[in-house]
């Protein structure tokens, strides 16, 4: 009950942050604007329409990833320091609230806020691509009747793309992991330093395949190899969540989506639990 009470209050507080509202509105606005891509690209064939739709999907997923990164960084860097600065933490922790309940409650609040933000973006994104695919399907149908394309060919245009739901969930999962890292940092770093540290962790995590290659490289300095091995082991592998290509070209990827999603979800959850546990320990004896 205490954790849920703190989480709900955190959501209410976070959703009123102007900067987060701006990120959300701009991201949703740009996703909606991507509908107009059909006016800037010419398609006169099925293939052209498919490329056009793929561009919108790619743009939407990329935009959600950027907005999600900014939202999770801005939201979580101030999660604990702001409570200390505003002194609300003193009235909360002088009540029968354990420190772990406070940390978990704050993080749960951030998790829910992130879910609302990415959920809203994802909803608009899926609506946009569904509308776009529907519009294209109708255009193609009229063209098909004119040029006698087969009905089967027209129906290959997928109106509702389940892969985009998976894509949105993957974006959410990766920012859940980033949020947990930033939460841990927020127990001992200032918000500004935390923002840059979090950004660095995210960028290094995206380049996980590169750090892995460097760690396994036969040639090169032994110390650097050792360093890359450590970095690759500690920094979350955000590259795991980067599935845009797989989702946009499912025909070229030999992946069982169910197994793969389960594996990535488990990875994210384990990482989140580990980071939250470390944050609880870091906060346990923190001088307030």
């Amino acid at each position, binding site marked *: 009950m*205490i954790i849920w009470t703190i989480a709900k209050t955190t959501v*209410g507080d976070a959703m009123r942050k102007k900067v987060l509202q701006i990120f959300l509105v701009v991201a949703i606005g740009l996703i909606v604007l991507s509908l107009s891509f059909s006016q800037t690209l010419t398609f006169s064939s099925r293939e052209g329409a498919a490329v056009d739709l793929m561009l919108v999907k790619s743009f939407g997923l990329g935009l959600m990833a950027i907005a999600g990164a900014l939202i999770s960084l801005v939201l979580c860097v101030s999660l604990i320091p702001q409570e200390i600065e505003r002194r609300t933490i003193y009235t909360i922790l002088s009540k029968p609230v354990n420190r772990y309940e406070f940390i978990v409650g704050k993080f749960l609040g951030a998790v829910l806020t992130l879910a609302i933000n990415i959920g809203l973006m994802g909803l608009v994104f899926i609506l946009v691509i569904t509308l776009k695919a529907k519009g294209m399907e109708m255009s193609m149908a009229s063209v098909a009747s004119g040029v006698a394309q087969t009905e089967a060919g027209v129906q290959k245009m997928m109106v509702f793309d389940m892969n985009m739901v998976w894509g949105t969930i993957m974006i959410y999962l990766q920012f859940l992991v980033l949020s947990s890292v930033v939460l841990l940092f927020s127990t001992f770093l200032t918000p500004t330093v935390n923002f840059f540290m979090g950004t660095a962790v995210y960028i290094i995590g995206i380049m996980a395949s590169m750090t892995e290659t460097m760690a396994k490289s036969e040639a090169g300095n032994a110390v650097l190899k050792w360093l890359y091995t450590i970095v690759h082991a500690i920094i979350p592998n955000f590259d795991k969540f980067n599935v845009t290509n797989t989702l946009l070209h499912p025909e070229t990827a030999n992946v069982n989506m169910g197994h793969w999603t389960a594996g990535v979800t488990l990875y994210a959850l384990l990482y989140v639990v580990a980071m939250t546990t470390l944050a609880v320990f870091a906060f346990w004896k923190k*001088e307030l």
Partner: protein
Amino acid sequence: MPEAISVQDLTKIYGPDGGGVTAVDHVSFQVEKGEIFGFIGPNGAGKTTTIKTLLGLIFPTSGTVTVLGHPAGDIEVKRRIAYLPESPYFYEHMTGYEVLDFYARLFGMDRDTRNSKIGALLEQVGLAKDGKRVLRQYSKGMLQRIGIAQALINDPDIMFLDEPTSGLDPIAHKDIQDLIRSLKSQGKTVFLSSHQLIDVENVCDRVAIINRGSLVKIGSMDELLHAGTTVITLAHAADDIADRVKPVADKTSVEGEYLKVTVRGQEHIQSVLDMAKGKADLVSVVPQRQSLEDLFVEIVREAGR
């Protein structure tokens, strides 16, 4: 029966490995149950550090701190205490009612208990009509009142009040003084830290003065403020009385028909009364009190601040 608060040889040093700034230096004191205890000192004296240690928000470098017989910060202790920080801030998007509901939920109160408590508390702190307004529309005085209300939500045995009257208008100031007195009448213990020395003098049973991390004075108001002198006022004194009392008096003065004799010590009071017997009318015998402000200034100046 354990004391409400016990601080034994508390030392708090900020900085890495205890090698930094000493905020509190070997401080010891006890606060009895039902007592209103004033804790005063100049800025940076160690008041807030001591309060935070009592609340378990920071940890002693050495020494022991117990509240209601348990270690400070114990969850069972926190069910029975309350804290009002200086210039409290609450989530300003919430209404007064929602803020109190939030704090009530932290005590695991059910809906009916919360509703009845919150209504009564809003009434008690004079915000019954403002409970549905969001806090960003509240004045400083109203925020302080909601702070008091959140502190009372669990009907605490001990209240820690840090500058509760800071920045308040005279009406709100008076209301909070009255509230502190009413807490005493309910048998609550109040630990009051304030720069408003007149408040401390008016409401506290005992006072501790801390300066540069060390406890420099502690005692009841009478013990601390008794200046050690007594003024005996006589009327219609015979001509020779003023000369006769001079050897035992610190000072004598004639004000109209009155002779005022200032003496130090019980035996000198008795001597003057014996000398005046049958030769003057006794008007009053008034022990002189120092104000807390005078005492505080004297102590701090002696310490070189």
